[in-house]
């Protein structure tokens, strides 16, 4: 018995050691500087966090007269482009209540519950927002992994007033569980109206990829278009998150485009052995709000390669906890399936007050590898 415990301890120590080395190597790889032709993601703009105009030495986000004076006077180069203030939120907007009730609850450390949608006809029966109680329902997640639904079917569902008797204020947050991490999925879901996004990841790079395509610049690379989101009623109050948290309108938060990054919630689904091995790095990223431990798939995948499911699952849970991120699991025994996300930490009121989605990048253009708990030692705020 003792020998087994020792063996387990040894394994855990070894795993921790490997994870530490992995993180160190990760940081080393991520830390490589941009080549002169751009950045180390070839051919795409990777925001760099620069704020000072080279010719004037002025902070472009402070009092720089962007309407009349050129900030970027150097040759056009994404590697040293100083991102302008056009999408900045005002001080009031930065502290406005969230129009995404899921974000509002997560920031407050409250549990979040969502129901699966696998058919177009089944949507309205689970679309009503319920803040608290045994039937609590904060978001719906359209399952694009294991259903036959396509864009043309779920976009209309997300329109305002698509369900009889429900309004923007009484409809649960729109969410989707995607089958891939590429631009197509992210663009279509975002443009369709999703603001709770669940994506499968198997590596830290996968997690960076989903952040990259899902959020607007400068944090991500999502492009703008004439989309379903135009139908969102900006002047109408969002669902009341519950537990005394305040509602907000999209307009009051700064408009859809500018407030999306702050309000959108990203949940990284981990259902593979590789994903579980990368969980610590994934959970550490700013832009990842929660980890979905896909128990059914992780168990299935682990068995396939003879890996220890419990050890992997514990590692995933520990990763979420260590980074103050919500941990989500799905109850597949009920119809529709129910996803529950909880923060397994006791936060003080002061801690909760500090929790904000920074949506910031490090000097290399990658999401900051730290928890959203502002003031945390890891948080270069």
């Amino acid at each position, binding site marked *: 018995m003792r020998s087994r415990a020792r063996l387990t301890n040894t394994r855990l120590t070894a795993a921790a050691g490997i994870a530490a080395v992995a993180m160190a190597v990760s940081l080393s790889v991520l830390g490589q500087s941009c080549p002169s032709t751009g950045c180390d993601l*070839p051919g795409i703009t990777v925001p760099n966090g620069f704020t000072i105009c080279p010719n004037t030495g002025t902070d472009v986000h402070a009092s720089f007269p962007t*309407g*009349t004076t050129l900030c970027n006077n150097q040759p056009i180069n994404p590697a040293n482009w100083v991102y302008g203030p056009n999408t900045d939120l005002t001080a009031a907007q930065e502290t406005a209540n969230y129009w995404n009730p899921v974000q509002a609850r997560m920031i407050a450390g409250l549990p979040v519950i969502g129901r699966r949608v696998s058919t177009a006809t089944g949507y309205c029966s689970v679309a009503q927002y319920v803040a608290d109680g045994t039937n609590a329902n904060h978001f719906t997640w359209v399952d694009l992994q294991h259903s036959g639904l396509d864009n043309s079917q779920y976009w209309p569902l997300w329109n305002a007033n698509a369900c009889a008797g429900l309004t923007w204020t009484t409809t649960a947050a729109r969410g989707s569980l995607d089958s891939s991490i590429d631009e197509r999925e992210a663009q279509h879901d975002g*443009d369709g109206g999703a603001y709770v996004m669940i994506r499968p990841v198997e590596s830290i790079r996968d997690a960076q990829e989903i952040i990259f395509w899902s959020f607007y610049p400068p944090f991500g690379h999502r492009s703008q278009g004439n989309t379903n989101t135009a139908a969102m009623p900006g002047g109408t109050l969002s669902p009341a998150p519950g537990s005394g948290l305040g509602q907000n309108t999209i307009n009051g938060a700064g408009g859809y*485009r500018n407030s999306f990054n702050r309000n959108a919630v990203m949940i990284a689904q981990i259902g593979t052995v590789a994903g579980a091995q990368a969980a610590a790095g994934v959970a550490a990223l700013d832009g990842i709000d929660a980890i979905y431990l896909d128990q059914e798939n992780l168990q299935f995948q682990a068995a396939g390669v003879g890996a220890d499911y419990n050890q992997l699952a514990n590692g995933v849970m520990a990763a979420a906890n260590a980074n103050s991120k919500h941990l989500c699991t799905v109850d597949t025994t009920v119809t529709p399936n129910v996803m529950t996300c909880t923060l397994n930490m006791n936060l003080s009121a002061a801690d909760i007050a500090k929790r904000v989605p920074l949506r910031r990048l490090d000097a290399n253009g990658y999401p900051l590898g730290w928890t959203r708990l502002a003031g945390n030692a890891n948080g270069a705020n």
Partner: protein
Amino acid sequence: MIRSRTKQSNARLLAAGVLAAATMAASTSVLSQVWPTNTVKQNILSGAPLVAKRIDTSDPATYCAIASTPGTNFTWTDMVSSGLDYSYAWAMWAASCPTAVASMRGAEILYAERPSFLDGALPRPPAPRELVKKEVQRAADGGAMVLMIQVDSAAQAQQVVQRAYYPPIGTRDLGPGQYDTVYPASVTGGNYVGTYNANLVVIAIISTVAGASQAKMIAATSGIHAIFLDAMNLESDSGYAQGSPDFNNLASFVRLSALASHKYLCTTDRTTTPNTLTCAKS
């Protein structure tokens, strides 16, 4: 010495003349392959402006009404920021629309790259991004003769050309699409495949600082006919409002790049419904 120089000059002139003649012959050959109803390519060859209307509906009747708007050269079916799937786009493109003036179908498609990430906890330096073949293939096989695609680099523009054209210019697959239905023998002379390269129009969309920084090389890419200055997204990606000096600097560089390569420059009016794309020779 002078005589020798004169000889050299004569030889150069002769070579230039032969080259010009060959170019003219090739142009004539290309021109003869342009379908009579392809006003998009005809306008490009003659320097006339182009107008397109955006499609984001799956309703064939609405599509037909938009395609029948006077002065429209092609439809711009938005496969990026709409809920359209290809099954709907194909159906619209193939549906009968006798009143259509925009006989050429166009599609804005995603670059949809998927870097070959390796599994595991260790991130590796990402591989060069690749344009997923499916995006171009499905649009073209459905009948799109105008391809609009956002690119961030000259390398991406080259890859678009490679994916979009049939050999010998590119590597587009030969497959049983619906192009022969959309463009019957009365349009193509019964030779869609053989005349496709001469009729295709490719528009590179520039909407990022990265794209703007390489606009000159993107515009110079052979096989790219026009540059679409996507002001709304360039504003979003740069952080500067349209009209500000920083935005104007980016936009000017894109415009000058199109001009330098004698390519068309496209802009869009998003205040109209449907949105209108206008392209003019720089």
